[in-house]
Each structure stands twice: as C-alpha cells, then as structure tokens.
C-alpha cells in the first residue's frame, strides 16, 4: 500500500504549528480563513477594555441600599483588599436612571451609552480569581493570571483567521499616549500559538501606525529591490527542493509590501463624513475623548475590512491612582475619576454602537465592554474604592446578543455575586460560541496538554443570547 501525500495533505498532517503556518504561506496569505465549528452569529469582536477596574456600583449595578447604610461599617465580612485601608459604606455619588424599552438603570456618567441599552446584555455577576491589575489583566485576556498563554484575540484569530490578507486578524488600538495595561504587551501575545496570531498594535494617531509599516524609500525603489531578491529567492527555493517554509517566507514579503499601502489607507479618515466623525466625538475639544473616538472609528473600519478581533485602549485622566496602564483605578477621588473616564469613552462607544447599527454591522459584530475587576462598595480612604473581584459588571452588545438583558446579580451591597455567578471562562466560552466556535474544541497542544482559552472550565451563557 503506497499512498501519495500531496504537499497540502502532508502539511495538514504535521502536528506542530509549522504545518499549519506553512500551509497558510502556501495559500499566498498571511492567514487563511479557517472553518468555524458551526454557523456563527458574529464575525468580529470589538473589545473595549476598561483597564484599571471599573466600579460596577457606580455604572451598571445600582445599589440603593448603599444610601441607606452610608458611612456605616460593612455589616458583612470584608475580604482581604489590596490596600487594606478599608473605610465605611460609600454610596455611589452618581444617579441612576432607567433607559430604553428594557428600562435598565444606568449611571448618569454614561448618558449616551445608556441610550443603547436595548442592544446590550449586562452581566452583573462576573467574578475574577485575582485581585491585582497585571494578574487580573492576564486572567481576563488569557484565562491565566500570568504571561505565556495566548490572549483571547489570538485564539479567535487562530480559530477563524482573518478575511483580509493585507491586514492582521487581531489588532490592538492605541492613541493619545495610551499604553498597554499592567503586564505589558504580553497581554496581546500569542503565547504558544503561532506568532501570526498575536495582536498587531496600531497607533491610530501616529505617523507610523504599525511598527516598520512605513517604507523608507519610494515604493518604486522598494519594488525593484523586492523583485531583485525575489529572483534569488526563487533560485534558492529550487535548490532546497521547493521547501514550503521558504515559499511562505517569499510570499510574506509580498503581503508585507501590500500591507504598507493597506494600513495608511485604513488610518486615513478623509473618506469619513463630518457627521460620522461628530457622532463618535472626534471633533471634541476634550483631547482624550477625541483620541478614544478615533480608536472607536478605526475599530469600525477594521471590522468592515474583515479583521476578527479589535481591542481598544483607554487613556489616563490621571485621577486617583489611575495611571497610563490602569486609568480606571480610582483608589481615591472616585467621583472625579470615574466621571472623567466615563466622559472619555461614553460618546465614542455609543457612537460606535450607533454607527455599526446604522450600517447593519452590529448584527455581525460583538462589542464587549469590561475591566479586570470591579470596586468595593465601601470606601478606600475617604473617597476612593479598592479592588473587588467577587462580583462586578461587564456588558456585551451586537452579534447574537439578546439586547436589553440583565444577567446575574450581586448582594444588596454589590459585594458578592448572589445569582448566576460567572467568570472569564464563561465570558470567552460565550464569545467563542457566538463566533461559531466550540470552546472545548478550540485547542492547541503545548507542553503535553491540549490547551484552551477556557482551560478546563467555561460554559456558554445562553440566557443572554438572542
């Protein structure tokens, strides 16, 4: 018995990442579009990451009881906090109003986002295992509290591939001096997945938005040199028996060449109307807000072009302990800090949702809004809040989400989850599900185990699905 294996079959057979990659190379793309496990609801994800830990009791989880107990010590056991400087019960300084058909209450610091509440499913019962920024950031991004594991965007890209051969499938946006959250750019890393899945950082307001994307000479000269060495490369390829790896590397030069044109085109907003820019708040005199708005608009342009996963980055308002890496971290001056941070993102995100909707993209785009943990219902010092991983809120909207839903609940203080407790594994199980991927089947063999974004956990939160 003698079977001839085609090169494609042979590569598909290889168990290591190399096989897959080389195959992608053969297809003349930096990434093929892979097959989802079942019919997807969403094609892309936009992840509005609220680094630093947004207080849920001040945003999407109103707790009138806190008013009642103002200034009193917590009547229930207080868990260890990171600063161990615990004050008394501290009601939200913000008012909540009901919005939309669903009548879901939202804090006054999100007046515009609130109007989109009928598109959103708010999860009020999120929990995390860790109580510290870098570990929390890794936990929500990768499922594990330390570097080394692939981030969700990388998993999605690995599972689905991009639909645009000139752009990376997973893009992280920065603007106005925003930086990676605590933990560094490893949060966007591909871990043990092949490196082509890692996030490409796009500085949306930078003259060179992606590292080394600007040619240092005319395209003409560059093309000439490319052709010159391509000739040599072809000869080399022949000499080494048409090695698929080399072939893929040759193709990569072409992809890179085309990316040089695709990226500036992407970042050039001149074809966007004034009204669109205004919708997002790009015209805002508040420079932070305008910068964040630019990320939101870019996010739409990216998903339009088939990018699978876009992560956005908040800018610091330098209030409380909120620095560049953790802008929402108001251990002090919560009212001022959360007010300013909400102002920065409220209109841009609302604008993004509206824009996606009016273009018919919201149905196939899943928007996630989340931070690494919530904040304590009691104060830290006089006017801040410490970290609270025992119960907090996130929301999702768009592709496959049942709008106007509230899922789960915390106790009357907003301290611990009392109903439908869930964790980041459930979040990603749900996200992958909406993308047509079975989270238990999206695996990669590394270090002797078949690893998953959801480790050995995760369940799809079906009550929030449309």
């Amino acid at each position: 018995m003698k079977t001839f294996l085609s090169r494609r079959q042979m590569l598909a057979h290889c168990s290591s990442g190399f096989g897959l990659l080389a195959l992608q190379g053969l297809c003349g793309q930096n990434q093929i579009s892979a097959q989802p496990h079942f019919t997807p609801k969403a094609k892309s994800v936009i992840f509005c990451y609220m680094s630093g830990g947004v207080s849920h009791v001040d945003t999407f989880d109103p707790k009138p009881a806190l008013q009642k107990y103002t200034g009193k010590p917590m009547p229930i056991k207080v868990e260890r906090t990171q600063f161990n400087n615990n004050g008394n019960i501290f009601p939200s300084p913000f008012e909540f109003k009901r919005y939309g058909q669903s009548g879901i209450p939202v804090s006054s610091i999100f007046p515009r986002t609130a109007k989109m509440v009928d598109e959103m499913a708010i999860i009020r019962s999120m929990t995390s295992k860790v109580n510290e920024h870098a570990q929390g950031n890794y936990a929500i991004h990768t499922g594990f509290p330390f570097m080394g594991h692939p981030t969700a965007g990388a998993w999605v890209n690995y599972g689905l591939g991009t639909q645009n051969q000139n752009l990376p499938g997973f893009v992280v946006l920065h603007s106005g001096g925003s930086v990676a959250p605590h933990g560094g750019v490893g949060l966007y890393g591909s871990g043990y997945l092949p490196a082509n899945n890692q996030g490409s950082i796009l500085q949306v307001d930078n003259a060179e938005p992606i590292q080394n994307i600007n040619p240092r000479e005319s395209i003409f000269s560059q093309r000439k040199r490319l052709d010159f060495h391509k000739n040599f490369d072809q000869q080399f390829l022949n000499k080494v028996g048409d090695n698929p790896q080399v072939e893929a590397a040759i193709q990569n030069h072409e992809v890179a060449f085309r990316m040089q044109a695709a990226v500036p085109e992407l970042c050039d907003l001149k074809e966007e109307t004034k009204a669109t820019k205004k919708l997002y708040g790009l015209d805002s005199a508040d420079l932070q807000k305008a910068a964040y708005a630019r990320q939101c608009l870019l996010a739409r342009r990216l998903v339009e072009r088939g990018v699978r996963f876009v992560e956005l980055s908040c800018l610091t308002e330098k209030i409380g302990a909120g620095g560049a890496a953790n802008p929402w971290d108001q251990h002090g001056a919560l009212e001022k800090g959360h007010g300013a941070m909400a102002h920065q993102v409220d209109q841009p995100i609302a604008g993004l949702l509206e824009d996606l909707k009016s273009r018919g993209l919201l149905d196939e785009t899943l928007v996630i809004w989340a931070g690494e943990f919530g904040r304590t219902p009691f104060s830290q010092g006089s006017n801040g809040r410490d970290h609270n991983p025992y119960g907090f809120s996130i929301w999702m909207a768009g592709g496959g989400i049942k709008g106007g839903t509230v899922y789960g609940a915390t106790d009357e203080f907003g301290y611990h989850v009392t109903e439908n407790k869930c964790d980041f594994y459930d979040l990603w199980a749900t996200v992958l599900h909406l993308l047509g991927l079975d989270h238990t089947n999206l695996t990669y063999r590394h270090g002797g185990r078949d690893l998953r974004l959801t480790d050995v956990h995760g369940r799809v939160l079906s009550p929030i699905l449309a």
Partner: protein
Amino acid sequence: MSNFLTCIFVYFYVVSSTKVMAQIDQREFFESKIRPVLVEHCYECHNSWGKAKSQLTLDSRDGLLKGGNEGPSIIPGNPEDSLLLQVIRHNFKDLRMPKSGPRLSNEVLENFRIWIANGAFDPRDKPPSIKQLEKTTSWEAVRERRKQWWSFQPIRKIEPPQINDGHPVDQFLISKMHQSGIEPNDNAEGLSILRRLSFALTGLPPTIEEQDRFSNLANNDLSSTVDRFADELLESPHFGERWARHWMDWVRYADSHGSEGDPQIPNAYRYRNYLIRALNQDIGFDRLAREHIAGDLIKEPRINQSLGINESAIGTAHLRFVLHGFAPTDALDEHVRFTDDQIDAVTKTFLGLTVSCARCHHHKFDAISQDDYYALFGILSNGRPAQKVIEDPAHFTDHEKTLLGLKNEIKNEIVKVWKKIDLNIELGANRKSTEKNALNFLRPWEKLHSLIDDNFSKEWDKLKKQVKESEARLNVRRSTVYPLSWELKDPKTYSKWKKSGTGLKNHPSKSGLFTLSLKGDKILEDILPAGAYTHLLSTKQNGTLSSPRFKFVEGDLWVRVVGDQGTTVRYSVWNYPRRGTVYKRSSPDPLAEKWINFKTNYWAGETGYLEVTTNRDHPVEAGNAERSWFGVTEALLATPGQGQPKDEIAEVLSPLFANLLLEKNNISLKKRYLGVIKDTIDSWENDSLTDTQARILNSLVKQGILPNTKEQLPSCYSLVQKYRKIEELIKAPRLAPGVLDGVPFDQALFTRGDHKKPAHNVPRRFLEAIDSTPYPDGSSGRLEFAQDLLRKDNPFTARVIVNRIWHHLFGNGLVRTPDNFGRLGELPSHPELLDFLAHKFRKEGWSIKRMIKFLVTSEVFRSSSNPSILAKEIDPQNLLLSHANLRRLEAEPIRDAMLLVSGRLQLDRVAEGISEPQNSQRRSVYRRVQRNSLDPFLSVFDAPVPSSTKGRRDITNVPAQSLTLMNDPEVLRGAREFANLHKTGNIENRISELFRKALGRKPSAGELNHSIDYLNATDKEAAMIKLNLSKLTLKLRELNDHVTKVTEPTRQKIINLRNVNSALQESQIAKPSLHWDFKNGLVDSIAGVKCFLKKGAKLENGELIVQQSGYAITEKIPFEVTEKTLSAWVKLDNLNQRSGGVMTIQSPNGGVFDSIVFAEKESRKWMSGSNGFARTKAFITAPFEMEADQEFVHLAITYSSNGTITGYRNGEIYGQPYQANSTKFLKAESVISFGVRHLPASPNRLLQGRIKKASLFDRALTSDEILSKFNPGLHITEEKIVNDLSPEQKETYRKLLKELEIVKKKIKKIEEFENTNKPDLQDLALALFNMKEFIYIK
C-alpha cells in the same frame, strides 16, 4: 498512509501483519492486543460499577455489543461501520476517544480493525467484579501499565548496525533508510557545510578567511576538514554564547519577574555568564545538572580561580526565573503558582516530563502521580527566594583571622587604659547627657547628682520604683507565653533561623562583642548585646537572616533590630518576596536598637517567616550599597493585649539599683556608679559580660565617659588603622539569585489542586515510577533529587539532553518534542540511535562538546538539504533524515550576523558584564530580557516568551518579519554600514565580498551580472532623481527669490521698527559661555575661543557653510562643562541627509561627545547624539523636520545635572525629554565642532548645510530662556508681512505661493522616499539581508 510510515510510528510492539485472522489464535489476539487497550483507555469511564458515560459499558462483551446512547459499539465483521473504531480513529470532530488524549497508535487501530473484521472474539461473558475492576483501574495498575511507555524503559546498550565502515550515527540512519528503500543524500557543497557548522556551533557566519581556508582544505579531504573546523569552532569562545542561549530557552531565562511593576531579578545575568563559561570549559552535563538543583549545597564546589568565585553556587539561579505577581491578596495561591512554575521548568528541562500536569489529579497519560507532584513541591517550596554569595570562600578566612586577632589586641589595649582611668573625673558633676533614649546609663546621675537630702532621697526612690517596674515588665515579657518568641542569642534559636551571607556566623554573637569605627578619630563604634550581627568584622560583609516558618495569628509581629537604613526588615507570606501594599517592610535605625512592629491581622492563618537582609541581599528589591549591616536580638509574635515590647530602662539601670544605697547622697551614688563601671570593665576583660553590662558599656562609650578617641588611645589607633586597611580588602561578596532552604517539611497534597483543600502530607522523594523512597528528614531533598536525576536507572536525563543536542544540530530532535517524552510527546524516529547516544554520552563523562563533535563529523550532518523525489514522496517529514533539514536561523543569529557583517558586532567580553540595553552592539545573548517589554526585533523572529521551558522554538512566517527586514531603521543602518565597509575597489570584488560575508559563498557569474544590472538601474534611477531634484531645487530657489523680492522691503520695514527692542532683549537674555555669530568671523565673542575651517568649509554672508567634506573645529575650551546647553541656528541643504552633526562638544579624539545631530536614529528628525549612543534616545513624538531646508531653524539641546536631556526647535520643546547619565567635558581637554557629529570626520558624520549662530551655555537653560533665545519676537511671521503688502503685491505673492507649494510637494515626495546620498552598495546590502538565503541555512 504507507506501511513505511506505520513502521516509524511504532516503537515497542512491532506490528505483525494485516493478513488473515483465522491463522492466529483469536483468544491470544484479544488478550494481548485488545483487552489491555480496553482496560487502559476505556474502563475508567465506561464500566459496570461506577461511571458509565453515555450509558456505555465496555468491560463486558454484552456492554460492547449493546452499546450506549449512540447505539452499538461494534458490528462484528464490519469494522468500517463500527462506531468504536470510528470514534477511536477520530473520524468525528465532537466524539473522539480516548477523551482529550492523543489518538491511539495506528498499530492499535489496525488491531481493532482486524479484531472486528474477524468477528470480534470476546471471552468476557460478564463484567469484572468490583474488586477486579478496582484492581485493574487502580492507580498502581495504571502506573505500571503506563511505565511500559518507551521513555520509561532503561537505556539499552546497542551496537550500531554494520552497513559500511562509516560513522556509527550513519549506520543507524542508513540502515533504517534502506528498510524504506531510500538512499541518503550526498554531501552538500563545501561552503554550505561550513556555514551550517559555523552557525550551529557559534551562531555566527563564517568569515571570508574561514571560507577560503575551508575550501582549500576541503578540496583534499572534506571529512578531515570538517573535523578540523569543528575542533576550532568548539574552541571558540563564541561556542558558549551560542549554546548558552539554547539552555536559557529551557530554563525561561529573564532579567525581570513580569507582572505589575516588572521588577528586576537582581544579578540574573550572572547565571547567563556562568552558562557561557561552563559550556566553553565543557563542564560535564551531570555536574551542571547537579548544580542547577543543588549547586549551593555541593560539598566540593567548582571554584573559578581566576574570577575568585564559586561557580556551582550560581546554578540554582534559574529557580528564581519565576513570574511574580504584585501584592497578591491570596499569597498561598501565588506561592503555588510560582512553585508550579519551578516544577514545570525543572521536570521539562531535565526529564522531558510534564510533572506539573499532575497538580490537580494523577497525570492524564503518563506514569506520574499527583503525589509525585507534591513530593517535588515539598522539595522546591522550601527554598526561600534569596541572593546567594558566590564568592570563593577561601577569600575570606585569611582576612577574617587577621581582623579577629587585631580586634583582640585592640580590646586588650583598651581595657588596659580603661582600668587605669580616674572615673571620678570623668563622671564630672556637670555632665549633661546627649542620649535621650531609655538605654541611657547616666540618666540617674544626671537627675540626682545635684540634689541633696530629701530631694535626693525622693528622686532616688522614684527612680528606683521606675526601675523595679521596668524589671517587672521585663519579667512579664520573659515569662509571657507568646504564640512565638525568639532570643537570637540563644544558640538553639539562632541555629533554627536560616542564615546566608558572609557576615552571619555559625554561632550567635556573645554579649560584649564590638565593632570598630571604620573612619574618623573614634576607636570603638558599638559594644553589643548578644544576638545576630552581620558587621562584627566589616560592614562589607552581608547577611540574610530569616526565621523558621510560622503561622500568622491576629496581633503583632515585633522584631528588635539595629542596622543601616538600607537594610530591609520584612515578613514574607508563603515565600512571597516582593514589597507591596499588604506586604510591609521597614528599616532599622543605625544609632540605636529599635523594636519594629508589623500588624498581622490581615495575614492571620497564613504561613510565612520574618526576614532581615542587608541592602544587596533582598531577593527582589535589592539595592547596590556595598556597605550595609544589621543586628537582631529578639523577635516575637504577640496576640492582641500581650503588650508592646520596648526598650526598658532596667536593661541598663538594674545594677545601679540592685542593692540599697546606704547613704542617700550623690557621693554614695558616685561610688555605686564607679563600682558598677569597674565590674563591667572587669567582666568585659573576662569575656563574661551580660547584655545589661554590654548596654552599660556602650552607653558609657557613646557618652565619652570611657576614652575612645585617637588622642586618648594612641596605641589602639595605630592598630585600628591597620585594621581599617585590611578591612578595606574584604570584598563585598558577589551575589547571584538562588534559594535559602528552611527547615525541611513535607507538603500536603491539595485535593483537586485546590490550595484551600490540603489532604495528606507527601514525603519528599523522586518520581515513584523510578523510586518512591522518601528523602532523609533533615534534608530539603534538593541534593538527593539532583542525585536521582543522574542515577543509572533514570533513563530520562541522558536521553533528553542528547536529544536536545541533536535537535540543535539537525533542526529536529530524534524525539521531535524535546520537552515531552511522555505519551503526548512524539515517538523517537530512531530509538536505538537515541539509546546508543545516551549511553555513549553517559559513558564518556557527559561531555557536551564531545557529543557535538561526534555528531557533526557524521555524514548526515554534511548531507545536502534538497530531498530526493523518493524522500519527498514517502518521508515528507524527513523522519529518516535522508537529507539535511532546511533551517531558519533563530532571532539572535540573524541579528548578530547583520551586526557582524556591518562591522559593528562587539565580540569581546565573552561571559562578562550585566545585561545589555536595546541599542547594544554586543551579541544578542547578552540582551536584557525584560518580561513586560521584550525586544521587538528578537520577538518578531520567535525569540521565546520566557514563561516556560522552550526546547523547540516556533518558526513562524509572519509579514511583520518582512516588514522588519524591509523597513526597520536598525536593519537599514546595518545595510548602510555594511555598504560603507565596501566603498572602494573593483565593483565585482566589492559585490563578491558582500555576498561572501552575508551568504557565506561567492556569487555566480550570473548573480554578479544580475547584481551589477540592479545597481546600475538603481544608480541611473538615483541619478535621474538627483537631476530632477536639482531642477526642482533651482526652481524653488527662483520662486523663493521672487517671493523675497516682493516681501523683503516690507520685512525690512518691520525689522527696523523692532531692532531697538531686540537689542535690548538680547542683553537681558541668558549669557552664553561661548558664542559665535559667524557674521563676526570665527572667534567666539565671549572667551575668544578660535574656530578653524577644515576641508573646504567657508564663511559666506555671515554663515558658516559646511558642505561636502567641510567642517569646523575650535581650539580647546578653557573651562569644564557638565551641565550645558548647545544652541545653534542652522539651515540644511537637504532633508535626506543622515547623521551629520550641527554642533558638538567632544573630547579631542571624539571618544566622548554630545551633539545636535540630524537624522541618525530616525530619518528627518533631530536628536542628541553621543558616543556609542550612551546618552542618546529618540525624542519620541517629535515631528519630522519639514522646513530646515527652506529656512534657518533654531535648535537647542539642554543637558541638566540630573540627566534630563531636552530638545527644542524654534523655541518649542521638541518631542519628549528623557533621562540619561550626564558626562563631564574636562577643562582644556574639550573642543567644539560644527558640521560634524564627532571626530574623526568620516563622511557619514558630516552635515550638509549652513550655520548662522551658535552658543554654548554652562547650564541647562529653562524653556523660557530657550524661547527668548530663539526670540519669537524677532521672528516675523509671513502673516504680518502679508498684511502690510499692497493689494497688487498680495496678488503676486499668492500666485507665487501656489507655485511654491506645488514645487515643494514634488520635492518633498522625492525626499521623503529617496535617500539620494546613500552609499552605492546599500541597496544590494539590504537586498542581501532580505534574501531567504540569508536567514535560512540549507
């Protein structure tokens, strides 16, 4: 799949055949091939007594036939429709068995097919009894079955097959190839072999000289040439650098811990240098493995005489390459994580096993139990994070003896004097104390000596009462049962505390030991109560003192310490080493003992220890003070209400009040004092001081009652001086990361891995599959574990390392998963060869070099990489190694090769120095690995993320790699410098040299012609562009002239109006130290420093013109400059130029300089240039220069004393300021140059442009001062001028402006993209870097 491939996948059981079942005994077939598989892989979840997932039981014939929810499992006689077979073949995506395991081997699948096809004979009439089931599915039974896996089998002694008389390795390989009918490839071309060899052994490309020599020799005898070059390369110091990097991948080397704050791992670099040295010296792998686990405990450590260090002690540093979170509120969770990280790295690196998979349950696939995991956990979790002394111990003893002797002599001299002095005088009546603390011995005297009669009596009684109360408190303190209390003077207690460092000895320090003053006129520094001290001989000696493990309770932790403020006093919860919000730390007081308090409520219930470390010894937040010291006397853990310990007056005053004072007056009191003091001095002389007496004596010395100065003790002083000289020779010991063992303990197993659910304790021991004997009670087990790694019946260690060596030489291991030899790893392609090599390696002293030499002298190493048609067809993965594997270079050799060929790689200082910053030109192995900001160039080419063992790097193909090679400024710089090295000579030779350096071979005639054509084309193109550009420039000049004609009269008018004001302003603004206005010639107008024109530079119309080779240089400047501002007005000839300097201050040879530079690191941007980029960073966010070719712009760079470097352009801050070290320019030793970055004035440092004015200030001007210097008041905007134009003029002006815009745009476009003055071979150099042949080794 062909039979051939099946063969390859099979290791132990050789497949029989696929023929007819009837011929063999069906029962035997079932029992030997089917039942064991069912038991091993199916019974656990599908049995008749417990679990029957999907209602399916597979432990009886009926169960099998009936099936479960999905219907019958088998249809006898019809294998293809049998669900069981489909499921184990993984035909369905969502139903694959065994669950989440690897697919069963093809052989097993084939057996099942045969079995079903032949009717599925099954003797199992009924299911096994529950006992039988338990027995077959018990862990012991499972483990024994799993131990049959190939890697658990002993290493066999195997003779190579005899195919021909060639190399043994080839015998094995060819024999296997012949079984498949494949022939090995012939030798590759000679120079390909050399390139392969050179990169494999040193990570560097072969030089032209090596290529020539190799070719000449190889013409005669290729094999002996390879032999000879292999020897040479193995002897190269760069061998160690190459192979240390592989090793660093295994142990996840990093210079920081990651997470929030990403703190440094102090001294991590010493481990890298240790590896390089060890590999270069070919230290046996057995030795190194032992050092990695227990190098600090080895009885006869490896001493490096020339460096004076204990090499062995550095080995354990990798245990500290763990990740650490920031201030975790669940400290045990963090502890479990970083211990898990250690277990993972150690077992993968040395055993090729994934023991960390057994944290929550027995290993899913391998013979590794959950107990195994916790046995190793117990060994490793005991090791407290530490900095360990690596100094050669021999260094200390000599000096220590001398110093001790001197101390004795000094003490004897002091006692002699003290016994003779008249204390009556010293205790003069009017004495006022300077000491305010409780331990002031003179306090009663000060209070009482002037009182008489009743007053004296009253005060005496009052004081006496206080002292008695104080004694009572002390007694209470001593008799109270605290949860924990320690007195460090107690030898038993002292021995239980863990110590490291050169200052802390084996026994506690007795009362009355003292320290000498190390500077000044004093003799004694302190006389000390008994306790633990690091500084009895020298404050350069160091120490870590850490308590036994204890459980925190609610209350307070107290520790009584004295020491310098660089010392850290802290508690550690579950070995967590970092400081953070809920991890408090404190510092002692150098002048007095102090009780330091930590509240413990937060951590009640957790386990931890107390630790005091001298400044450089903190495991994470180490300082760099060479002198640091501390002493600890007591510590306790108190529950709330158990009082606060404090310094008690009774601790010095008790002897004064011990007896009644017969006459209550000051004469009697003085007598009492004199008596006590005399007794105390006597006791000191006899070495029998109590702590109280020691404190008394110390108080007396401190207050000058007892003589302690140079004048008072002249004979002592000379001894002290001698002491100080020798003390200077004591070394502050060098340190490396490591661990400090506490008292050994067994770790409790965590049920399902949940650290909140401890179960039974597991003894510390090796893996039970090899030996489950517990390690001795008194040992942490590290030494024993190290020993077990190397024991004869452990088949893993030797196999794993030879496989790693094979992997790095041939591009793939014999086992292609080098970190996993378990069930989920791949099978060895040549198990016999692997065993042959492992056996040989062990027998021949575990020598890595010897093994490499052996392997690279095989024929297979030399074979060409182009597969034959047959090989491609039947062995596409090249498992048979019929041809060499094509390999992409790793990130480091790519970068190193670029640096090398462009003449910039610094190859000296092998195995020396700390980790290097990003702009370093040393080899990449020396680069700092900062976890949260990994090097982008290295990362893009798959340098590993240092989070776990990486025996096999990814080799990805991503566009970012191509973008890097096309556009990265460093790559372009490399190409430019590469071309610059080849500027003269015959074009063909020059091209050929480029090829030889970059690709290790000469270009063919065709390639040469092709290259020349390419260069000609780019030349022509460049010429055309140049012509075009000069035409446009001319046009621009004309238009500008025209505009000037229109606007100039109006401008002049405005200027004249303002001139009066401006003169005034100039006199008020900051005064420079040197100032040139080239209108007034070449001499500076402040100090008269002359400037000289060089190589065609000229003065014209008040401008210094530096073009082509021209530049200008001053005589030496007559003052020293540190803080400074460089300021100049400059206009550039074009914006494409690179790396020219406007104004530079420098040493006369240019070795040290600071300069205003245009477009060096980044094109079209200004920066502050400096020698070797020492003070250079980009001014980030600075805009591209768009105007300096059109008009003069003002540039200034300020260098402040704190190292801030700030750029200004036209009065405004340019980009972001940054920090760097400042440097000093010596008086009469420095010059200023214009138009050249620094001397000597080579072409790539020259500016093309003109300079109008320039100044040097001896300080960093403020932004306001810069603004006034630029003087926007004088800057007349176009708008102002246009406003004053007549309507007609305005119209002309607008037209001209439009035309100007168009021309400017055209010029900009050309300039932005065309580097019109690049070296002529730069395009080719860059093309070579981009060639696949450059990054692939064929």
